[in-house]
């Protein structure tokens, strides 16, 4: 089966001019290769500057590689003929909830995508209603966006992506600007989308979110440093530290207990598992 996303030797370089006027080449993404089969939930983890957001923008052709190729369902992003097809196959939700909303009425904004695709008006109406219900915002469909909270706005953005009936959605740090409640709402929807069969690419710097994925890709300085199931990554203390990221609470607690001499297994990763492991030690 053709993977839905295929990235080969992707390099993205741009010129940076320093204050003194010297120009240097900066590789935001450096020789990245990976494939994503349909239906997978992939988390891409990395610090700011690791290249994860730049990589994300290659997945729907918003950026084109300096070197290397990106194929979406077999279509090369460099080919102009396919670009609208590619963008309706891979939807994208960005970090800033406000700056994605085009219209002053919620349902009109969700309709923006399908309208661009030239979908029949009655069909657009159907898709908009479904999308709004999927994110739990149907009741607010006639509201103005500035009356909504950050989490609600982000849900509208997700509905806007869903309405285009994509096979894959890339979420570029969707919860970075949200409060805990908003974060929870958005992650909930992401899980439900994955369960419904949509391929999910979640770009994030929150370890806790990454733990919930099927597969973890860690990026540092434009390169992929790890590409494995989260379970394997989080069982490896050194890998976590190398990535330079914050340890999730459960892992940190597990490590502390091990340090204090308790025989807790390194494979313990979730709250339930840790509680169980501790109880076993009684």
């Amino acid at each position, binding site marked *: 089966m053709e993977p839905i996303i295929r990235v080969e030797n992707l390099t993205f370089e741009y010129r940076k001019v320093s204050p003194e006027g010297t120009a240097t080449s900066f590789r935001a993404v450096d020789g990245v290769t990976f494939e994503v089969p349909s239906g997978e939930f992939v988390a891409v983890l990395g610090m700011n500057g690791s290249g994860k957001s730049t990589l994300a923008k290659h997945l729907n052709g918003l950026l084109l590689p300096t070197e290397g190729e990106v194929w979406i369902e077999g279509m090369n992003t460099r080919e102009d003929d396919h670009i609208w097809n590619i963008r309706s196959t891979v*939807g994208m939700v960005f970090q800033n909830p406000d700056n994605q909303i085009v*219209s002053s009425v919620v*349902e009109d904004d969700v309709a923006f995508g399908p*309208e661009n695709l030239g*979908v029949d008006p009655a069909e657009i109406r159907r898709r908009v209603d479904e999308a709004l219900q999927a994110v739990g915002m149907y009741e607010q469909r006639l509201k*103005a*966006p500035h009356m909504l909270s950050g989490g609600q706005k982000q849900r509208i953005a997700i509905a806007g*992506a869903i309405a*285009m009936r994509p096979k894959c959605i890339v979420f570029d740090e969707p919860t970075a600007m949200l409060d805990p409640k908003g974060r929870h709402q958005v992650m909930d929807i992401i899980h439900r989308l994955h369960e419904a069969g949509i391929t999910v690419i979640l770009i994030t710097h929150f370890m806790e979110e990454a733990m919930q994925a099927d597969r973890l890709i860690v990026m540092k300085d434009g390169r992929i440093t790890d590409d494995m199931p989260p379970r394997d990554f989080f069982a490896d203390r050194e890998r976590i530290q190398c990535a330079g990221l914050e340890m999730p609470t459960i892992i940190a607690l597990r490590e502390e207990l091990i340090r204090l001499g308790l025989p807790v297994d390194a494979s313990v990763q979730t709250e339930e598992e840790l509680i169980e492991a501790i109880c076993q030690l009684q």
Partner: protein
Amino acid sequence: MIRDITLGQYYPEQSVIHRLDARTKILGTLLYIIEIFLVNSFAGFGLVILALGVLIGISRVPVRFIFKGLKAVVFIILLTFVLNLFMFDGTVLWHWKFLTITYEGLYRSCFMALRLILLIIGTSMLTLTTKPMELTDGLEKLLKPFNRFGLPSHEIALMMSIALRFIPTLLEETDKIMKAQQARGADFESGNLIQRVKNMIPILIPLFVGSFRIAQDLALAMEARCYHGGVGRTRMKEIVFSRRDWVAGVLLAVFLGIVIASRWMPLP
């Protein structure tokens, strides 16, 4: 605080007027403005006032909202009135030193003031009964025929609707920036005019930079959602003329006829 400003003074109701196609209302308003300038007698204005009264009644918009629009231009109306009052020669009614009020002056000033008032009330009926989004959609459709002359009707309409969308956001942003700079001791109240303009820089620059940031993000989001101009775009909410629009159209035409006729009748 700034959130309290309601945009475009739209007054939500379910009247026939509200449900008219925006295009009907826009064209009707244009016709109305022409009619106001065609009228050359108080009797003519009487007809207009009658028609306007009926319109306001049907629209169910409370009268106090209608007069709110006048508040902003009360000064101009007064100025017009006063200037015309003292400027005309003719039968003198009253004079004091170098100020003379004539009958002709009084007639003219009342006429001009009334024209202004009716102009404002009539046009504010448009914004009171039509949602901003409906207005931009209507304008887009009206301008479409001019595409062949190179007018980018879709782009203009999109710019307007995006502007409408972001006005509340930018107002909030301005509020935040003002507060942040005030917290740093900035003072926007005192000082002469030049001072005050200079004091606006700490607000204007962040606002501009912020707007560019919004524009960049928005453009990216629009591209990601396959925006590629107006060609091939459909609309979820298609605006179509209904029977009430044709009825309104006929009524408007009839009224125009009456107004034109009134010009040739010897009326006060």
